[in-house]
């Protein structure tokens, strides 16, 4: 009996158990479970003011993170005040019950729903639109959220890894690497040769190498941290658009600020294009400047978020069907996706750095005859 047959019989057994369960289980309940799983997944993908460890969403083990608000001066308090405040039924402007609750902490003057903080109105309530969206103003929220904390962990890990590697050279001089340096050096050389040198020509790559190295390690390490299921990992940092937009903006700024005459002349007077076409071409080229980093932002965000969603969805199969037998199917599949994600982590870091180098390379390229 080969491996293929073993796997086949496992899957068939799972299906048999599942069909038995379904016949007993309430169809409606399965649907409810699906919705719960969906909410859990979306909840995980988004940022939070707490670091939930285990147990139920309310009353489980969780780390409450500090909330920092800029609202006429800095206000700081624990997020416990928001999670454990008294819950109020959400009403729309006509007074109809919207069917969900939000936290209103009248003491602090803030309402809390879907991990977002709003200022309460004079009556200590939030105003909702008919579609159920809060309409109150929001204070500037600089809280140390789950992703922010994960960001700090990632940065510390990067510094520990790279500084240890760098101190090896300081101690031993330019010898063959050992220990951590043996792990860091190939990546550094890879970024230097295959990312920077390959895309930025004319010996200009050295100037941009620190940026490309930093962005590569930042994305790579934070991607990997996201794969660790428990603290200090597990946050969906690089799958958050706020993070990827900042990284993309850095690439955009560097590209635009280092663009030479040749680069701008291709945008404002593309050679070989009739002058009559320029009014059309210039806006297209200008949009092109923005679409490149925009694609970087979306690519990293979507890839990493998708990885987290797939793993969680596969694990959720067990809870949707309320049968541990499904673990025989969902755990191997989740493991497979997790291993695939290891590749994706590296690939996305490489792609982001490589495309950044490509855009910078195009901006500093000299005119060819």
């Amino acid at each position, binding site marked *: 009996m080969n491996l293929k047959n073993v796997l086949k019989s496992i899957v068939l057994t799972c299906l048999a158990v599942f069909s038995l369960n379904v016949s007993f289980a309430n169809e409606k309940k399965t649907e409810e479970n699906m919705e719960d799983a969906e909410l859990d997944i979306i909840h995980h993908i*988004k940022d939070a003011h707490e670091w939930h460890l285990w147990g139920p969403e309310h009353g489980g083990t969780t780390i409450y993170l500090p909330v920092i608000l800029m609202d006429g001066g800095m206000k700081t308090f624990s997020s416990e005040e928001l999670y454990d405040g008294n819950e109020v039924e959400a009403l729309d402007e006509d007074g109809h019950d919207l069917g969900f609750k939000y936290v209103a902490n009248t003491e602090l003057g803030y309402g809390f729903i879907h991990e977002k903080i709003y200022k309460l109105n004079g009556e200590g309530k939030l105003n909702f639109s008919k579609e159920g969206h809060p309409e109150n103003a929001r204070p500037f929220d*600089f809280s140390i959220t789950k992703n922010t904390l994960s960001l700090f962990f990632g940065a510390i890990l*990067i510094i520990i890894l*790279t500084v240890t590697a760098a101190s090896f050279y300081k101690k031993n*001089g*330019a010898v063959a690497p050992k220990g951590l*340096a043996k792990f860091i050096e190939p990546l550094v050389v890879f970024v230097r040769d295959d990312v920077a040198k390959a895309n930025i020509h004319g010996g200009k790559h050295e100037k941009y190498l620190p*940026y490309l190295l*930093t962005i590569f390690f930042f994305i790579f390490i934070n991607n990997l941290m996201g794969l660790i299921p428990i603290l200090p990992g597990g946050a969906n940092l690089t799958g958050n658009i706020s993070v990827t937009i900042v990284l993309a903006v850095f690439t955009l700024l560097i590209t635009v600020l280092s663009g030479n005459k040749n680069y701008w002349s291709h945008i404002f007077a593309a050679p070989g294009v009739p002058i009559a076409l320029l009014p059309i071409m210039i806006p297209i080229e200008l949009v092109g400047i923005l679409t490149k980093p925009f694609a970087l932002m979306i690519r990293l965000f979507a890839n990493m978020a998708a990885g987290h969603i797939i793993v969680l969805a596969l694990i959720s199969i067990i809870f949707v069907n309320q049968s541990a037998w499904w673990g025989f199917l969902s755990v191997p599949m989740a493991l497979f996706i997790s291993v695939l994600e290891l590749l994706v982590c590296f690939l996305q870091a490489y792609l982001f750095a490589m495309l950044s180098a490509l855009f910078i390379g195009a901006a500093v390229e000299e005119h060819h005859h």
Partner: protein
Amino acid sequence: MDLILPETGLMFWTGLVFVLLLFILTKFVWKPILNAVNTREQSITASLELAEKTKAEMMALQTQNENLLKEARAERDAIVREAKELSTSMIEEAKTTAKLEAEKIITSARESINNEKIAAIAELKVQIAEFSISIAEKVVREELTSDTKQTALAEKLAADFKLN
């Protein structure tokens, strides 16, 4: 929709952390690592080049040695040959000189012998002549001792004259 709307707070923290990271890593990590890697790569390239150069030099030296050896051998052969030639010619010359000298000596010896001979012959001739004269004197004296003998001789001599 929340998923694709960036949050100011996280954007701020990301930007801050990234800039700090960029600064710290550039100053304390990337430069030392890249310097070490570059130095090592350069030293490896230099070592390889040196090895290649040494190899070429060794080859050149070997060829040079061989050439030197060849030259030395040729020179030795030439010297030997020259010496041989010289000795042969010297012997030849010596031989010729000796021959000439010998001939000269022989010739002069011959000459002197001849001269001696001639002188001896001449002396012999003189002495013979003297002897002959003395004999003839004695004969004549004898012949002339009596008148008859004188007359016979005169007659005979006269007959001889007539015959002539």
